[in-house]
């Protein structure tokens, strides 16, 4: 390996930072040609761990059971804002079975001494104390014994009130280019659209959870997280440990959707209680706690003004977003669609992050961009209406050939192909026929929306491949597979490169102990970051194997290739099982390590897509039924079409629910969420599923290192709600002022 440090940019959900990347200059792995005939990549493969999952044998964090383990229960604030007057920690400790209690006066007791629990909770559900006991029932009894006395303080949950009072988590931002105001004034046609979008809860079925145990100063934690390395670093920092003295295990995660970053409060509290009690501790949020404190996509109030020429050229974009942040958190890029989706020189985008008495907002699949698309793409349809222009044609007319913020070219962009494919699959050309009177009396319509997201991945990402005497390869990765199937994608890529059947390749992840780094499972970056590293590692093993085969068969290495587990010479004289070479290894193994190289300078990397929705509206009942979604996304090369379609279906269904049913409702009088349960917070059921038709342009990104893949986690959730709202407007001629399109809102809109 010829190691060099290279300065490069790292992107996560649209935030760029400069980092040093470790580059192996001797790595000569070339990109697969766009039309390369690959044996396994691009063909559907079931999950490598499918059999264990359907048998109920896999162990999630909530299932981890250690000898002598204590169970923890959390006391949460019942009020949106308050001050703890009294808390009877001694009574809790005296409760039978209780072994440890930490309260608002407690600190993380090792070096950092940072506060962990709130003396002045600023949202309903904020943790005030945690009790660990022999059983969960005893821990709950301990929580009751705390006899919390809370002085209730004034709260603010209404974002308009927060805006009026100028209560912000950070200063509002103004992202402008050109002069949007003058361009609007000069425009031949203008439209304006306002939309309120709901707070949406990630609602992973496995709640946030952690199990922690100490062996001297070595900390081991099972954490239900999307980022086990971040979790490791968080724990090391909180307890003043070396990262090599913390091991995080995250083999199976019961859903995350953005809401499980780092170690979380749960692992901190479990580790602290484990240190205090000397026993392993398991802390699992109950459902109410999870819905209150697991996270959410923030509610927004947005408005968009567009100016255009009569021929459809967009000349001005002026957008603003009020974001109900809660107590803080990252300000996600709600106005990225307004700023980047179409060609326009005069743009203004104002973002107001309002501080409210809710949990800090956190990431939920395409944070910011999804709710921004819901408003912006409806405004684009309003413009099409004002211009009497086909909505897809308007989008084609304003296609952005280069990135509108930096002026740089895209690494690849197949958005126009997405429009064409989606239109054909949906029967877009005859969509107005849907508006003719229907035999069932329902109002039908069809609407579209575009999608932009990042998803290029980048360094650091590493992999190690180890081939044994029996011809079986183990791929060691830093992947935590939260359900996307990336372990199986790595299996496919490694098997492809090694020339082995899938059954001879096993991928492991979910453990920081080998210190083979993989990125957080977020931002649509796992596949584009990890797969090139896996390929490089496997390529090194293949080269070594061929060298050894050359020795064994006494033939030039250049004349040999490996396919489907057999080594063949170009003249056909040699055709042998791989094991004829590997068996000579004995107890030795062939090892190769690979890393992800940087993305090339001068390009911006984005994914694109288009979805078309068909809806049927019952105007008497106010019910909106989504009948079909066509989803076409440009994510470069598809590694596993089976898992990819699962990602798309999942994103579409979460986007559909954002448009139709999901909304955290907060009582303005008390500031307390009233539907933070699974029975009244309505996620989709199997009976709600529309027909979902999926396709891709299938054009690998030639500018991304070695596999041509972009990420697919976020893209499919982004345009769904906008497409549904546009279809609703096509069907009814009306537009709701807010999502979701619940029955009362629909009836109000149609009245």
């Amino acid at each position, binding site marked *: 390996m010829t190691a060099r440090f290279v300065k490069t940019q790292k992107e996560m959900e649209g935030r760029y930072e400069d980092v040093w990347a470790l580059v192996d200059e001797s790595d000569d792995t070339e990109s697969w040609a766009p039309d390369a005939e690959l044996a396994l990549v691009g063909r559907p493969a079931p999950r490598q761990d499918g059999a264990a999952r359907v048998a109920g044998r896999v162990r999630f964090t909530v299932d981890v059971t250690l000898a002598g383990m204590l169970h923890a229960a959390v006391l949460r604030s019942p009020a949106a804002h308050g001050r703890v007057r009294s808390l009877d920690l001694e009574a809790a400790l005296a409760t039978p079975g209780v072994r440890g209690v930490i309260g608002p006066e407690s600190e993380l007791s090792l070096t950092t001494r940072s506060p962990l629990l709130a003396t002045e909770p600023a949202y309903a559900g904020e943790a005030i104390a945690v009790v660990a006991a022999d059983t969960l029932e005893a821990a709950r009894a301990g929580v009751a014994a705390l006899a919390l006395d809370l002085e209730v303080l004034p709260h603010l949950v209404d974002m308009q009130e927060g805006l009026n009072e100028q209560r912000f988590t950070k200063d509002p931002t103004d992202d402008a280019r050109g002069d949007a105001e003058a361009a609007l004034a000069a425009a031949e046609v203008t439209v304006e659209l306002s939309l309120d979008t709901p707070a949406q809860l990630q609602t992973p*079925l496995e709640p946030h959870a952690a199990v922690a145990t100490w062996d001297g100063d070595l900390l081991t934690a099972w954490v239900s997280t999307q980022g086990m390395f971040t979790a490791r670093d968080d724990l090391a920092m909180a307890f003043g440990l070396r990262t090599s003295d913390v091991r995080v295990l995250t083999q199976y995660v019961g859903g995350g959707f953005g809401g499980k970053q780092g170690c979380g409060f749960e692992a901190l509290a479990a580790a602290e209680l484990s240190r205090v009690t000397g026993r392993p501790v398991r802390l699992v949020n109950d459902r109410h706690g999870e819905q209150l404190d697991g996270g959410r996509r923030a509610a927004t109030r947005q408005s968009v003004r567009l100016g255009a020429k009569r021929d459809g050229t967009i000349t001005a974009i002026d957008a603003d977003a009020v974001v109900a942040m809660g107590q803080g958190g990252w300000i996600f890029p709600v106005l990225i669609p307004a700023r980047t989706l179409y060609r326009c020189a005069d743009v203004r985008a104002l973002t107001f992050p309002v501080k409210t008495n809710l949990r800090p907002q956190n990431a939920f699949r395409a944070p910011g961009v999804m709710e921004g698309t819901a408003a912006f793409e409806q405004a684009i349809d309003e413009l099409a209406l004002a211009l009497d222009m086909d909505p897809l044609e308007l989008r084609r007319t304003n296609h952005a050939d280069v990135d509108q913020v930096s002026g740089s070219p895209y690494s690849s962009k197949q958005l126009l192909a997405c429009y064409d494919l989606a239109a054909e699959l949906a029967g877009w050309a005859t969509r107005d026929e849907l508006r003719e009177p229907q035999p069932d009396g329902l109002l039908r319509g069809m609407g579209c929306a575009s999608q932009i997201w990042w998803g290029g991945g980048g360094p650091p990402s590493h992999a190690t491949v180890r081939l044994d005497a029996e011809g079986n390869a183990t791929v060691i990765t830093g992947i935590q597979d939260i359900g996307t199937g990336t372990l199986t994608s790595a299996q496919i890529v490694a098997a492809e490169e090694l020339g082995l059947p899938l059954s001879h390749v096993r991928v492991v992840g979910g453990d920081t102990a080998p210190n083979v780094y993989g990125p957080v499972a977020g931002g649509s970056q796992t596949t584009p970051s990890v797969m090139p590293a896996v390929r490089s590692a496997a390529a090194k093993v293949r080269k070594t194997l061929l060298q050894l085969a050359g020795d064994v068969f006494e033939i030039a290495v250049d004349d040999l290739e490996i396919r489907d587990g057999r080594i063949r010479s170009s003249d056909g004289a040699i055709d042998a099982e791989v094991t004829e070479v590997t068996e000579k290894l004995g107890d030795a193994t062939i090892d190769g390590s690979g890393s992800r190289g940087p993305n090339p300078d001068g390009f911006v990397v984005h994914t694109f897509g288009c979805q078309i929705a068909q809806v049927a509206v019952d105007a008497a009942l106010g019910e909106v039924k989504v009948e079909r979604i066509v989803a076409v996304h440009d994510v470069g090369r598809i590694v596993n079409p089976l898992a990819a379609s699962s*990602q798309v279906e999942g994103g579409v269904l979460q986007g559909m629910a954002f448009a139709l049913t999901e909304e955290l409702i907060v009582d303005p009088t008390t500031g307390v969420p009233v539907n933070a349960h*699974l029975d009244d917070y309505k996620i989709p059921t*199997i009976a709600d599923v529309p027909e979902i038709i999926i396709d891709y342009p299938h054009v690998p990104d030639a500018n991304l290192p070695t596999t041509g893949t972009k990420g697919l986690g976020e893209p499919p959730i982004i345009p769904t709600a906008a497409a549904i709202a546009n279809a609703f407007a096509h069907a009814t001629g009306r537009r709701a002022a807010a999502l979701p399109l619940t029955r009362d809102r629909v009836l109000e809109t149609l009245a």
Partner: protein
Amino acid sequence: MEITLDVNGQTYSVVPEGRRLLAVLRDDLELLGTKLACGEGACGACAVLVDGRPVNACLLLAEAAEGHEIVTIEGLSTGRASAVQEAFVAEDALQCGFCTPGQIVSATALLERVPQPTREQIHEAMAGNLCRCGAYPKIERAILRAAGGG
């Protein structure tokens, strides 16, 4: 008070102390395939078969299960994978997999009752099993496949 439970064909003596069947299965019998996701009967992740019918074990008092035949996901997974399990893998009818044991239990009960279900019958029988990842289209296909129609 000690009671006797018949779980996966085995007899167990347990002291329920007012707990739900789910807590006894997971904490006392260490049958961890059955999941707790909501604890309020809304999601079906804790579905087990009670005399062949799918029941949310988070709502059933353990005492009420005495005298009934209980089968968990472990009881459905003793030998070869069933047709339903094989179909779930082949169709990729799972993502994170947390709801999957409950889905398999409910699908097994459905196919036992209705060997050739229609899409509508699948929707009705499976609507109590939530999947946040949205594997529903493939769950439907897997059930049809297991029924020999997919």
